[in-house]
Structures are given as structure tokens and as C-alpha cells.
């Protein structure tokens, strides 16, 4: 490195440079522990997964391990169950995030108005998000959705629903309802933060000019909220697409694989089927797909946020 010092450098200049380099390291040193730790714990396993995905290896049969090249990937792409669970994952993520966001916007608009006990209502509304996901899933599966003793069927009894088996009839839908219940408060909180950061004088000016409330919402509020909505959608999607808890607790992916998503299906392959190589190949496919989708979304959003921070 020192070999590429500029030829015209005088002695004091060299000292200044090495000084600067030292200061550069002083600045970088605090980064390193966190960076190295994160790389070892979160990145190394993916590299190993990549390696495993080229092997045939059953955990229960010692000595079965051997190199098979891309055979696992060929199997993954022919596996109709993988395609079904991939589709389930998409439905679950898009449906949950979309509905939770629509409800979240409505609730945030509601909470942006002044009324008696608004703080208490806000506290009530954020609570579902704070419930441990495993406990929430268990709660919906039993006390709420149970065909005989569940409160949901009790509430719908006047409408002649009887002992309807919600989870059995709509496994994917039931899991989604539980997740929408948990994620709506998250969306609401982000959108509410957006609403409250809106400059009040513009709104007053518009309303003085006789603009109707809906026009104000469409022309002023919605464009302002866009960044907050995008942020909520991306962050919500990151968590929902990886959801394991709700599927595991409510349906175990069943009946069959009708409500399994990719995390659950890969888990099943690895820990119940003991197929390390295959599960690893699926993991790699999911990671590649995630990276492609996520890179664009994330850069877009966080750039837009840090950009306005500097402008403000």
C-alpha cells in the first residue's frame, strides 16, 4: 500500500498522510466488532448453506453424505409442493400487508382526530402488535376460532353460522386474519407518525380555500403519506414473508401443505424430513429471490427518507 505514495510527496506530507491513515483506522475501529460479529453469525451460515445445497445428505443416515452438484436445485424446481408453498407465501405476504395497511391508514386517520380518550384508544389499538406471536396464534386457534367454544362462532351465531370450523375450512385465511390483526397496529403507528408530521398550515390554507376534505386527503395527505406507507409495506413484508410462528402454531402448514409457507416448508424438510441438501437448496432459492426483490425496495425507501432528513 505504501508503495503507491505520490512521487512529489515531501516528508511532512508523508507524515500527514500516515497520520490521516491512522485517524482513519481510529474512526473505523469502533465499527469492526459489530461488523465482524454480524458477518460471522449471519453471513457465514449462508455460505455453508450454499455448500450444503450441492450435497445429498440425510441427517438420520450417517455416511449418506455425498456431492451431487446441482441435482438438489433441479429437484426444487420440479417440486410442485415447493411451488405451492411459494405461492402461499406470496398470497400470505401480499394479502396480509395490503389489508393491514388499508386498515392501518383508516385507523391512523381516526386517531388523528381529537376525541375523548384518544390516548387510551391508541393504547388499545397498538396492543395486538405487542402480543407474543406464538401466544397470539395460540389464542386465535383456541379461544377465538374453536368451532365449539370459540367466541367468533358465538358472535356469528345470530347469523346462522353454527359450529363452523374456520381453521379447517380456510387454513390460509385464518392464519392471515391472525397476522392482519397483529400487523395492522404496526402500519397504523407508522402512518400516524406520517399524519402528525404533516404541516398543519398547508391543510388549513387548503380548507380555507374551500377544498373538500376528501380532496385535501387525496391531493395533500396521501402524497405526504406515501413514504410512510412504502416504509410500512417494506418492513411489514420483511417480517410477514419470514413468518414461521403463526403457521407453526395455528395449522402446522396443514391440511396437507395448504397453509404452509416457505419458511415452514423448508423447516419441515430439514427437521422432520432430515433432508439437509434439499432444504439448503430451497433456502438458497429463497435467499436469491429475497435479495432481488429486497435490494430495490429497500434502497428506494431509505434513500428517500435520509434525503428529506437532510433537506429539512
Amino acid at each position, binding site marked *: 500500500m505504501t508503495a503507491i505514495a505520490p512521487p512529489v510527496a515531501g516528508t511532512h506530507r508523508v507524515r500527514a498522510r500516515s497520520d490521516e491513515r491512522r485517524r482513519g483506522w481510529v474512526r473505523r475501529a469502533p465499527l469492526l466488532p459489530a461488523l465482524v460479529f*454480524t458477518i460471522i453469525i449471519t453471513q457465514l451460515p449462508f455460505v*455453508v448453506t450454499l455448500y450444503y445445497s450441492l450435497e445429498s445428505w440425510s441427517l438420520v443416515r450417517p455416511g449418506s453424505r455425498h456431492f451431487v452438484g446441482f441435482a438438489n436445485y433441479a429437484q426444487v424446481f420440479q417440486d410442485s409442493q415447493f411451488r405451492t408453498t411459494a405461492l402461499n407465501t406470496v398470497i400470505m405476504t401480499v394479502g396480509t400487508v395490503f389489508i393491514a395497511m388499508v386498515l392501518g391508514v383508516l385507523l391512523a386517520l381516526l386517531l388523528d382526530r381529537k376525541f375523548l380518550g384518544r390516548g387510551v384508544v391508541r393504547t388499545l389499538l397498538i396492543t395486538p402488535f*405487542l402480543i407474543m406471536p406464538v401466544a397470539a396464534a*395460540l389464542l386465535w386457534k383456541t379461544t377465538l376460532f374453536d368451532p365449539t367454544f370459540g367466541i367468533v362462532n*358465538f358472535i356469528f351465531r345470530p347469523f346462522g353460522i353454527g359450529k363452523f370450523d374456520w381453521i379447517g375450512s380456510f387454513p390460509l385465511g385464518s392464519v392471515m386474519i391472525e397476522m392482519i390483526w397483529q400487523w395492522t397496529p404496526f402500519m397504523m403507528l407508522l402512518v400516524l407518525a406520517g399524519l402528525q*408530521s404533516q404541516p398543519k398550515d398547508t391543510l388549513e390554507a387548503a380548507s380555507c*380555500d374551500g377544498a373538500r376534505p376528501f380532496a385535501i386527503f387525496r391531493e395533500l395527505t396521501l402524497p405526504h403519506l406515501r413514504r410512510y406507507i412504502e416504509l410500512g409495506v417494506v418492513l411489514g413484508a420483511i417480517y410477514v414473508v419470514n413468518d414461521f410462528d403463526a403457521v407453526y402454531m395455528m395449522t402446522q402448514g396443514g391440511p396437507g401443505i395448504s397453509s404452509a409457507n416457505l*419458511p415452514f416448508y423448508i423447516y419441515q424438510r430439514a427437521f422432520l424430513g432430515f433432508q439437509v441438501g434439499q432444504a439448503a437448496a430451497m433456502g438458497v432459492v429463497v435467499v436469491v429471490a429475497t435479495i432481488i426483490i*429486497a435490494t430495490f425496495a429497500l434502497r428506494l425507501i431509505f434513500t428517500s427518507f435520509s434525503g428529506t432528513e437532510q433537506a429539512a
Partner: protein
Amino acid sequence: MASADVTAVPATRTVEPEQYTGPRAKRRNNSLTWGIVGWVVGIVFFFPVLWMVLTSFKTEAEAYTNTPHIVFSPTLSQYKAVFSSGLWPYVANSAFATIVSTILVLLLATPCAFALSLRPVKKTRDVMFFFISTKMLPVVAAIIPIYIAARDLHLLDNIFTLVILYTAMNLPIAVWMMRSFFLEVPGELLEAAEMDGAPLRRTVVEVILPIVAPGLAATALICSIFSWNEFFFAVNLTATQAATVPVFLVGFISSEGLYFAQLCAAATVATLPVVLAGWIAQRQLVRGLSFGAIK
């Protein structure tokens, strides 16, 4: 950008007839209507939680009725049953993993976030995006090597395995959050301290840390919530010694349809710490959940 759109709205200056009947009365009515709507929606969303808590104070016989009992004589027997069935070790494991991993996260993230907040260069952005990108990678793709490594190192069913994984899980969030707090420290303060010839270490401890202390607390809170609720690693990497509270709740799937009230008591105990913490720190919650992007 917003002010440009105002002109797009057609400016109709017609006087609304309601204005003659008293705008104040109308506004009060409006606020009442929205208040009622707000409360109804709030109670609907909160109802499952309320129902969980109510059921946890019932006997099993009362929990299993076709027509749910709203009025009943509350009993603590479900809580006693839950704790005597061995919930304490699970709570202890959860608390240990949560507290130790959160301390480790703060120790690692604070210097890192501070360094990242000093001079925004292109590399800073790369490091920041590296951290957040680790949050997007599906953990399920990493679990197999982690499981095999833990097995070979005899670290399965060991609480320190969870501590390390939870630290790695929360570190990116903490770096993003803490950086957003450090960015709020006025640059003049640092310069003034430098002019006085104070060493960087003293500047950090005596000037900066007191300012970002609330930020540290908020970060710790968010990390604690995620660690306490974590299930995927816990269920795959622990068995009897190091199992945490979410794993305890799994026991209730198999005994389905028998112990509603006891299940609700266990779920209430499991969720209570996070719900209380979240209620108290509502403001910080938004900032943490948005990785510090929203103030």
C-alpha cells in the same frame, strides 16, 4: 412540494349552509361521533386480548361453555397451575437470553453507530445497507448450518447459543436506531469539546452519552421485545435446559381442547412484560420499528 398541490384544488368560496346553524355545535357533534367510532374500533381490536385475560381467571368448566360467561367468579387457580407445571425455568431462560443479548447488542452497536454518525461518506452507506440487508435474509436458510454447528460444538440446548443469535438478530436494528440518535447530537458540541482538547473518549462519555441516553433506552426496549418473543431459533435449538417462554406455549398445541383457561393464563404471563413495556414506551416504539427512519 405540498404547497404546489394546493392550487390544484378548485377554490370554491361558496358559504356552506351549515355555517349559519353554528359551526361549533357541528364540530362538537363530529368529535362525539368520531369518539364513538374510535372507541368501538379500539375495543374490537383489543377484544382478543381482553378475552385472553378474562379466560385466564376462569375455571376450565367456565371456559368451556357454548354461551361465553362474561360474569364469573375469578380464580387464580390457572396461574397457580401454570407456575407449578414448571413455567419458572422457561421465564428464567427468556429473561437471561433477553437481558444478556440486549447488553451485548448495546456494547457492540453503540461504538459502531457513533463511528457511522461522524462523517457521512459513501462507505458509511454501504455499511448501513449491509447491516439492514442481514435483516431481510430469511433465517430459515441459515438454520441448518447453525443447527449442525451447534450440534458439533455441543451447544444445542444451551442458552448462550440463543444469546449469540439474538445479539446478531438485533444488532442491525440497534445500529440503525442508535445512529439516528447520534445524528441528533449537535456537531458544535463535539467541536467545542475538541477545541478544549478533551480526548475523544472523555467527550463521548461526558458529552454525548448523556444526550443519547434516552435513545439507548429505546433501543434496549426494542431489542428486548424481539428477543423475548423470538420463537424460531428457540424451538429448533433448545430442548429442556435452555427452552424459553414461547417454547413453553408449544406444549399447549398438543393438549388442544382441554386447557383453554390454563393456556390463557400462560399466554398472559408470556405477553405481559412486552405489553407493559410497549405501553409505557409508545413513542420510542415507532422509531425503533422504523429502524430510526421516523422520529
